[in-house]
């Protein structure tokens, strides 16, 4: 019986299976890797162990005892700490306050600030080489630190609780190699002290460097548990990809690949050396009627490129042209004027006006073109909304109903529909089918096809690799803010995509 045993873990999000009878077994004094391609369920498994996500079914045993983990507090009480890529720090509190948050040293109910400071200082001492020998300013608000420094504070905070099990889920993603080495050293110390560290990283090198064994997930189930010393990178990729399922080729077929080839000489969208905080020197050309897929592991710069092309983030350098005209947007309004549309990744937070009716959600981006001196005609607005609704087969009772009364798939169609009304030349889709049902997905695929038939250039980011391969004419593979390869034709396969995502030489 291993120290940590997770068995029969099931989790569905709506109709989507995230985990299907997944399991994990790991010992004290071990650094255990958790690997998998996009959508394999590794983050979900981590979140279930740390109480962030409630499983549909799971049996978790820690040290031989049945353990229920319903909330993050339960995980804390059982000695489980976690660091995710998204930080959980309070920006306005000091470094010390963040590290000891909810763990303050107290005496008779009073916080002993000096003791807290000493604890924090001792902890950060272990990370000192990451800051060229200097320790972090303990009194500085965390918000004033660099992203990498914040990440290290987050790790220190997790270690401060002296966990038996430490989950590091892409915790090194925003760190420089020198900082990674320091974190690795701390992880090895923890291992020597008898802790179990569960380690997830998109950098295979770090996995090989740190981990003893690894569990590989595929489509929510365990594809294998391996000794890393006896497993090559290529074998790992094979485990992640599995028996290659043919992508839905029928979607790609019949799109007139030949005419597309000809059209590529005159790109609709041309990006040259685009650089932002998150992107390095991105160049690409997209022809009218072409779907360019943005692939790679989640968060490697795919969304960042879409946001940059839409003017939602600051651009440091490079050029963007549409139909030969300069179209580098400084803000979304300029992008819209250039004929660019963005279906953002977070539908609720970035795409919808939740408390407003369907009508307004559909018409706001395009209303300027229909207004005369800023005055709207109710009939024209409704006609436009009805048009978008029919084109996308949106199912609604009345245009005056709140947009949140719609199903997830129909909400997403509203977000797409509001852009159709602007007659875009370039459409940026940021994971448009995340969390919507199969039927709505199929309908959205039809919309994408219809867009390309109208000569729209489409950039598609998808966390679903199969979908990406099926819909895209070409795929750019991203790794840490750079494009590392371009796949087209018969290279558009799942194992090439996964191998390139992890920067492993193709088998």
């Amino acid at each position, binding site marked *: 019986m291993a120290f940590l045993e997770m068995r029969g873990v099931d989790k569905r999000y709506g109709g989507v299976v995230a985990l299907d009878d997944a399991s994990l077994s790991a010992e004290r004094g071990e650094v255990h890797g958790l690997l998998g391609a996009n959508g394999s369920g590794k983050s979900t498994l981590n979140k279930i162990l740390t109480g962030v996500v409630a499983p549909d079914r799971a049996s978790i045993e820690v040290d031989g005892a049945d353990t229920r983990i319903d909330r993050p507090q339960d995980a804390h009480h059982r000695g489980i700490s976690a660091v995710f890529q998204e930080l959980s720090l309070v920006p306005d509190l000091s470094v010390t306050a963040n590290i000891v948050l909810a763990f303050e040293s107290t005496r008779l109910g009073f916080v002993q600030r000096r003791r807290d400071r000493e604890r924090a200082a001792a902890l950060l001492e272990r990370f000192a080489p990451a800051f060229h020998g200097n320790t972090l300013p303990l009194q500085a608000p965390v918000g004033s630190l660099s992203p990498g420094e914040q990440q290290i504070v987050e790790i220190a905070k997790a270690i401060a609780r002296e966990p038996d099990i430490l989950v590091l889920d892409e915790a090194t993603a925003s760190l420089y190699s020198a900082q990674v080495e320091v974190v690795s050293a701390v992880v090895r110390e923890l291992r020597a002290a008898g802790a179990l560290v569960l380690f997830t990283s998109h950098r295979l090198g770090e996995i090989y460097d740190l981990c003893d064994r690894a569990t590989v997930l595929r489509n929510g189930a365990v594809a294998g548990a391996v000794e890393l010393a006896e497993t090559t990178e290529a074998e790992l990729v094979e485990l992640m990809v599995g028996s290659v399922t043919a992508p839905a080729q029928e979607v790609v077929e019949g799109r007139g690949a030949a005419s597309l080839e000809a059209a590529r000489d005159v790109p609709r969208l041309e990006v040259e050396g685009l650089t932002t905080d998150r992107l390095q020197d991105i160049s690409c050309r997209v022809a009218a009627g072409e779907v360019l897929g943005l692939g790679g592991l989640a968060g490697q710069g795919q969304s960042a490129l879409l946001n940059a092309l839409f003017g939602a983030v600051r651009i440091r350098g490079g050029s963007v042209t549409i139909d030969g005209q300069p179209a580098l947007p400084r*803000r979304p309004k300029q992008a819209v004027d250039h004929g660019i549309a*963005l279906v953002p990744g977070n539908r609720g937070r*970035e795409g919808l*006006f939740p408390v*407003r009716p369907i009508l307004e959600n559909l018409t*706001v981006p395009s209303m300027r073109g229909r*207004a005369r001196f800023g005055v*709207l005609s109710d009939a024209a607005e409704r006609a436009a909304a009805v048009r978008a609704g029919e084109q996308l087969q949106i199912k609604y009772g009345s245009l005056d109903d709140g947009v949140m009364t719609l199903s997830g798939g129909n909400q997403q169609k509203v977000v797409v529909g509001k852009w159709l009304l602007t007659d875009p030349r370039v459409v940026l889709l940021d994971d448009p089918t995340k969390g919507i049902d199969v039927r709505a997905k199929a309908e959205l695929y039809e919309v994408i096809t219809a867009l390309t038939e109208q000569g729209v250039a489409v950039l598609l980011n998808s966390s679903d690799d199969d979908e990406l391969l099926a819909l895209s004419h070409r795929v750019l593979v991203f790794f840490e803010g750079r494009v590392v390869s371009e796949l087209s034709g018969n290279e558009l396969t799942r194992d090439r995509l996964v191998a390139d995502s992890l920067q492993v030489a193709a088998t």
Partner: protein
Amino acid sequence: MNLATLRDRAQLAEPRDLLRNPVVLSLLVLLALFAAGNLVAPGFASYGSFVNTLRIAAFLGVIAAGQTIVILGGGEGIDLSVGKIATFSTVVVAQVSQGEDERLLVAIAAAFAYCGLIGLANGIGVAYLRIPPLVMTLGMVGVVTGIIRVYSGGQPEGRAPAVLSQVVNGTALGGVRGSVWIWLVVAVCTIWLLRRTTFGRRVYALGANREAAFLSGINVQRNLVLLYVASSLYAALGGIMLLGFAGAASINLADQYQLISIAAVVIGGTTLAGGIGGYLGTAVGAVVLQTMRNLLIVLDIPAAGRQVVNGVILIVLLSLYGRQRRLRQ
């Protein structure tokens, strides 16, 4: 109007929906207030008394229109300076016109210009310098207070030109005063502005989800500035009307509208989180507040007690608002 809209209107008319409609609720509260007042003092609910209530509520109604727009725009938007801006407007008109009719138009233009500039400063502070609206507009109260003192020497000169007083206080059509007619025009224009213009749609979009508004190609900062400019222009108009009613300016004539303008907006069903509501509710809210004030007067409650009651009402309303916001999440 096509069939679909007719059906939509018909759906709204279901009794349960009606009781959830804040405008209808406010109207019911208004009826209850008049009924209660009539028990204490027969004649409280008479036509003449009602028309007189409207006459006074008009000033609040106009000033609260700007407050409605700012609050609808969300992002903790609130304009605490409307009362002081309206006061400034009374002082400017009185001093520039010196009570002479032929200088009235110049005086009104000056009031709108000066107050518009104050609104512009509020808007720039909130939109570009990212100062929280509460802090920015409260700070502006202090600034305008100082400007009024310097500008008027502590004792505003001049008075309302006769024409202004006649327009505001004159009666037409069934004993309804001029101030009510002005208010009616303002109300119609404001409702139209919010419902039938791109500006109105942007106000709701900003309030409903500022991030989504930005990503829909709305120039968030410029539109935020416009909210505060609009608010100060409404406050300026309210001040001009108030001067016509009061006859002479003072250095605190309209200060009371700072808080009750917010109360009128909240009673009218506009949520402080923004994005939901409209001016019709605020207009009813203004009448409710004025009627409540009248009721406290006929109940013979002293001024201090009336202030306490006003404050308690505001607290109750805001706590109800908190519940509403939780429901939204």
